[in-house]
Every structure is written in structure tokens, then in C-alpha cells.
């Protein structure tokens, strides 16, 4: 290592120091989630058809935590993505089954980038309280992100007619407003389609991770009015920004989950006795946990930095920090969650132990919004490698 400290030219100033307010936010969330998102509660919710903890969602809205990145003029808190990332990370620790990613991150970002001022006025205040839940439908039926999103929109009088299928929509069957990418004769466009629109059917997908529901949306000639077209910004940029925010939020969620698993596993290794000693005193166990800690700290650095890049709106840095965080945090979470099962032994393989919930969340988040290979490829393109 060298002692050079000069940052690269054009590199944003890197800092990780949390403000007192941010620390208070963390503390408050820990209290709230500790009592509300218990293992029993999460399991209860994940067996329901909707798969959403409505009560917890409502309370988060009342605390003002669902419109953190929404400006005050539109009923939000006017905070930054750093605060939102804290909520996501803490929620990730408890596997809280609420549409944070779909609505507060993906939906809110895309809507803010693509909506006209009237549209923002009309929808954002309810999004900020949680009364309106957004979901983003941008993948085709097989979950691929392609130039042709699987839905086609044609002019229909004053409004539009949507036909086709969007797949793998996170919280797609419970959202109130579906931000749907569709091809038109003039290229890609975005529409805000009400969840109860005639001709729209929504089927939940049997999901690996029961704590994060997915749905297939079938548009069978769904008519929407002209006001449904989001025409306030370039739809491709809006989608791009929304996905980048989602990618970084997932990385933060992964750090939260990995931290929780590592803490639980470490606590278990302190208590579980075999051969007359705590298993954590055996180096095979101790060293594995130490390695996991090393990985976790690196992942945390990457995720926090990416969140700050989004908050700073530094596009150049986001293009590096976001894929980097997603690739690294995905792999770290998967490793730590897998070790969580292994180091708990037989009990770790049972349904009643929570290890599998985190393991499934880890795998699902690894694949959602692009797997590590894809993100490394994207990063390579940015770095011209």
C-alpha cells in the first residue's frame, strides 16, 4: 500500500460519516422493526396471498419513511437516498415483507423522473404516505430486460390500449399503480396503469423467496386515458435511474441481511457446545466467521458509497459504484447466508430455523435486477476493460 491520498480527478469526495439524524433514524428503525418484524410475524405474512405486512407498511408511512426521497412540496420528507438506504438496510435485516423496493425505490424514482408536474402532484403525495403503492413492470414475460419489454401500447382515441405480458414484477399483484414500460410506434414509453384496470390480470408467481412476492401481469387490451402516459421526462433515462436506485437499494438490503445472519451465527457459535467447547472456539468455525466479517465490511463500504453516489446525483460515479455494489454485496450475502445454514448444523436446515429465509432472500436478491456477472460486465464497459 502507498500513502498517496490525492483523489483521482473528478472523483467525488468519499465520506461515510453519518449525521446525528441518520443515526437516530437507524435507532428508531431498529426499535420499530425489532418489535414489529419478528420471525413469527414475517412467517405469518409470507404465507398469505398478498405477502405484504399492511400494518407495518402503514406505520412506516405514518413515520414519514415512505416518501424520504420525495420533495416536501409533494408531501415527502425531502431527504436523500442515504436516508432511504438506511431504511432499506434495516428492513433487510428483518426481512420485512413490505413493498419498499418496488414502491419507495423503483416506483418512486421512475415516477419522479418521468412524470409531468401534474402527474407528480396527483400521485406523489399518496405514494409518500404509502396510500398508493407503486410497482415497476419493465421486464418481459421471461424476466428479460430487452428493448421490447413485452407490452405494446397503441393509440386508442384520446388514450392508449396496452397488450402483452410483463413478467417478474416485484409486488405486482398488490400495487395500486403499475408503472409499465411499453413500446409504441414512437419508441419506448411509460404508463401508470391502475391495478384494477379492466383487462388487466395479475398472477402471483411461486417465488423462491417467500418474503418478496413477484407477479406476472397480463394486459389484454387494457385501456388507459391520455393522462396515464408519463411524459415529463425521457422514459429510458427514467428507467435507467430507477433501476440504478433499485440496484443500490438491493445492495444495501443485502448488507443488512448479511449483517443479521453473521450476528445470529456468531451468537450461536458462542453458545453451542460440542466436544466440551463452544464451537466458535474451533478455528474452522472461528476463521470462517472472521472471513465472513472481512467480506461484510467490504460489502458495506461498497453499498454505502453507492448510496451516497445516488444521493449526490453523480452519474459518472453511479455508473461505477452501483454495479460494483450489486456484484459484491450479492456474493457476500449468499456466502454469509450459506455459512449461516452450515454453522447451525442440522437445525440450520430446518424450516423452523430462519437461516433458510435469509438464504432464499440472498439468492433472489442476487438475481433480481441483474446478477453479479452482468454487473461486472457493465462495470467493465464503464472502465473500458
Amino acid at each position, binding site marked *: 500500500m502507498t500513502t498517496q491520498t490525492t483523489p483521482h480527478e473528478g472523483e467525488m469526495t468519499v465520506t461515510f460519516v453519518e449525521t446525528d439524524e441518520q443515526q437516530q433514524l437507524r435507532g428508531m428503525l431498529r426499535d420499530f422493526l425489532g418489535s414489529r418484524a419478528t420471525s413469527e410475524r414475517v412467517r405469518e405474512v409470507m404465507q398469505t396471498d398478498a405477502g405484504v405486512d399492511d400494518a407495518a407498511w402503514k406505520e412506516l408511512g405514518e413515520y414519514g419513511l415512505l416518501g424520504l426521497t420525495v420533495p416536501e412540496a409533494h408531501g415527502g420528507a425531502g431527504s436523500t437516498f442515504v436516508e432511504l438506504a438506511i431504511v432499506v438496510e434495516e428492513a433487510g435485516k428483518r426481512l420485512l415483507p413490505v413493498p419498499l423496493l418496488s414502491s419507495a425505490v423503483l416506483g418512486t424514482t421512475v415516477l419522479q423522473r418521468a412524470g409531468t408536474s401534474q402527474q407528480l402532484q396527483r400521485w406523489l403525495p399518496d405514494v409518500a404516505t404509502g396510500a398508493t403503492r407503486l410497482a415497476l413492470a419493465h421486464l418481459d414475460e421471461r424476466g428479460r430486460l430487452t428493448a421490447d419489454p413485452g407490452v405494446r401500447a397503441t393509440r386508442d382515441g384520446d388514450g392508449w390500449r396496452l397488450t402483452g405480458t410483463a413478467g417478474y414484477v416485484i409486488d405486482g399483484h398488490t400495487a395500486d399503480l403499475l408503472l409499465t414500460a411499453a413500446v409504441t410506434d414512437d419508441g419506448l414509453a411509460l404508463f401508470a396503469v391502475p391495478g384494477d384496470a379492466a383487462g388487466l390480470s395479475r398472477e402471483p408467481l411461486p417465488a423462491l423467496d417467500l418474503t418478496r412476492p413477484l407477479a406476472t401481469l397480463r394486459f389484454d387490451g387494457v385501456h388507459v386515458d391520455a393522462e396515464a402516459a408519463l411524459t415529463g421526462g425521457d422514459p429510458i433515462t427514467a428507467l435507467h435511474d430507477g433501476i440504478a436506485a433499485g440496484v443500490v437499494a438491493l445492495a444495501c438490503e443485502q448488507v443488512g441481511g448479511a449483517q443479521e445472519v453473521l450476528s445470529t451465527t456468531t451468537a450461536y457459535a458462542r453458545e453451542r457446545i460440542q466436544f466440551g467447547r463452544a464451537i466458535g472456539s474451533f478455528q474452522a468455525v472461528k476463521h470462517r466467521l472472521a472471513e465472513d466479517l472481512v467480506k461484510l465490511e*467490504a460489502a458495506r463500504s461498497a453499498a454505502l458509497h453507492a448510496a451516497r453516489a445516488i444521493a449526490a446525483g453523480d452519474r459518472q460515479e453511479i455508473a461505477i459504484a452501483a454495479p460494483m455494489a450489486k456484484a459484491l454485496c450479492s456474493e457476500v450475502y449468499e456466502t454469509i447466508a450459506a455459512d449461516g445454514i452450515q454453522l447451525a448444523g442440522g437445525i440450520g436446515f430446518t424450516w423452523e430455523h430462519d437461516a433458510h429465509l435469509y438464504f432464499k432472500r440472498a439468492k433472489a436478491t442476487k438475481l433480481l435486477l441483474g446478477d453479479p456477472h452482468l454487473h461486472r460486465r457493465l462495470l467493465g464497459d464503464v472502465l473500458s476493460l
Partner: protein
Amino acid sequence: MSTDEREQVEAQLQALFAAHPPADTPEPEFWGAQFDHGLAWVQFPEGVGGLGVSPRWQAEVNRRIEAAGGSIRNRYLNILGIGMGAGTLLAHGTEEQQRRFLRPMFTTEEIWCQLFSEPGAGSDLAALSTTAVREGDTWIVNGQKVWNTLAHLAKWGLLVTRTDPDVPKHAGLTYFVVDMEAEGVDVRPLYQITGEAEFNEVYFDDVHIPDSMRIGAVGEGWTVAMTTLMNERVAIGGNVAPRGSGAIAHAVEAWKRTDGSDPVARDQLLGYWIEAEALRLTAIRAGEAARRGTPGPEGSTAKLHWADLNKAITSFAIDLMGPEGVTYPGGYEFVRPELTATRTEDPHKAFLRARANSIEGGTSEIMKNILGERVLGLPGEPRVDKNVAWRDVPRS
């Protein structure tokens, strides 16, 4: 407070630059002036190379000196003195010792080495057997040390000895500064995997050390040695290199010389790039946390991560070279270098040198024990030597 500190540092920098333009002043002279202006270790008290301000200003001082065309390579030339010895002297030395040693240390007029490890005591440092026996105001030292970096250039050595074999191992140690030119000190080169001899064996045959060269109390050598090792880790963890520099730069360069058609290699390269950058960010986090007085686990994970990652990346860079990977440009020279090879610019040498990263300054296994026990709070190993006199413990 911090604006005052900034002004204080700024005033000293201005005064230093005015009297000793960094680009035009010979290195040792400049470093001496830097010391006199309190800019050697800014956090040290005035008079012994510091200003008594927050250590965070040191990075700024270094940056400014380099920007003005000056050099901070004394930190590498005298890495064991400036990085580890100075902090030890400040914490446990007498004022007289500090005034005698710190300035010539900083100017590199007197190089320092660390005489801790022995053939029978590496990871288990407290097991060491080099003895020091008191005769009036003098200590007579006998024994052998090993793997002592830069001992061939050193004027002074940081030495830990056994002064009482009848108490448990940690209790019977005493710490000294030893004159490497004293009679009975024999330094022999020890060639390494790279063909260089950065380190040495050092033999002590009835070496006399005056009691005034003792650091800390008799029997308190372990505490003093711990300070040295803590400083070593801070020296490693506190450094933040620019994005994309170091080992990953070698790998990137090697990749650019391929035809770029292997997607697996590209994926691996980017995986390493990401890890290197995440580690760099972690070092920034660790620095911030330390400066705020709330150090977290990130400081302790950095050394382990760096050691293992540096080995992996330098090895991967050689893989990328294909046929060229089996060459060793420049050949094995069998020299005794004036610097540790850590900063080598040659990827082949960097690859070989990296093997040491998980051994020097505490092996990765020991680092994992420390992380597991001190940070994660896992129980320690069963101890067979805890309440046993050093004399009665088995050794190899």
C-alpha cells in the same frame, strides 16, 4: 478547534516551504526542517516532531509536500522506525530518549529495525528466548533474532528480550533499543523468495546495552511490544491509495495486453477490481472512524483483506500474461535492498513479494483468531501455557 488546527498546520507549512523549498532542498535537510516545524508526526507534542494536533492533518501535510515537489519517501526508507518505532518511543520512552532518537529517525540518518521474531517464536512472540541479564547499569544480551527487515542498514533495533524465565511467558519480557553497531551484534543476510535480502538474521553474543536504553519497566516488555504492533497495523490500515492503483493496476495492464476475448478472465478481473476498490473504501471508513474515536471492525478487517487480496490479484496478473508469466525479467539479483520490496513496480516481483503479506506483521491465521475473538467475541483457544513458567513450556 479544527479551524485553529488547520491554521496552525497551514502556518507551519508556509514557514517550512518558505525557508526550505521542498523541490530544491536536499532530502535529509528538508526532513529535518519538517521535523523542526512539527510536521513529522503532527499529533506528537511540540519539540519532538509534532504540533499536538489531530493525526488527520498528516495526510494533508504529506499531500502538500508531494504537490510542492518534495518527497515523503523517508516513510519507506525507514519504515520500521517512522511507522512503528516512533509511536513506541512516544508512548513508553523517556523525554530524553525521544529527543535523542526521533529527529535522526525522521531524516533517515539513522535507520531502525525490529528485532522481535526468533526461530522458535514467531506468531507466539511472547515465547521468545533471547536473554538479557542485568549487571549493574548494563544488560548483557545473548540469543538470535530472525526475519529482521532492514537490519543490515539499521543503526538502532527495537529489541524484546527475556529477563525472567521463571514467570509465565508474557510477564518476563523487557524491551530495549539496541545499537546495531555494538560489539557482539552480527547481522547476516537472509535471501527471500524474490532473491533479495530485505531481511536478516541477527545474532547477539554478550552484547552490552546500557540501562538508559531500556524502554518501559523491567518485565513490561510485552505491553511495549503491543504498542509497536498496534502502530504497525495503523501504519498499514491508515493508508489510502488512489482508485485503481497498486496490484490491480498490474492486473489491468496485463489484461489490456491480452486480446480481451476471454470472458471468464474479464469477469475475474472485474471481481478483483471491485474487491480492491471496496477495500480502499473500507480504509477510508476506518480512517474516519478512528479520527472520530469510534473505531469499528473495518480497521481490523483491512489488514487481513489486503494481504489475501494482494496475493490473489498479483497471482492473477501473472496468469493473464500467458507465456510471459513464466519469465522473471531482470533475473534474481541476490541483493540487499535499501527499501522493502513492497512497492515494487515489477509485476513478477510483486507476485512473489505478495506471499509475505499474509505472514509479515501477523499471519492471516493469527489475524483471523484476533478478529474472531476480539471483534466477534468468540471464545479463545484452550491455553496450555497460561499459568506455566516460560522455562517449563515446550518449544520447538
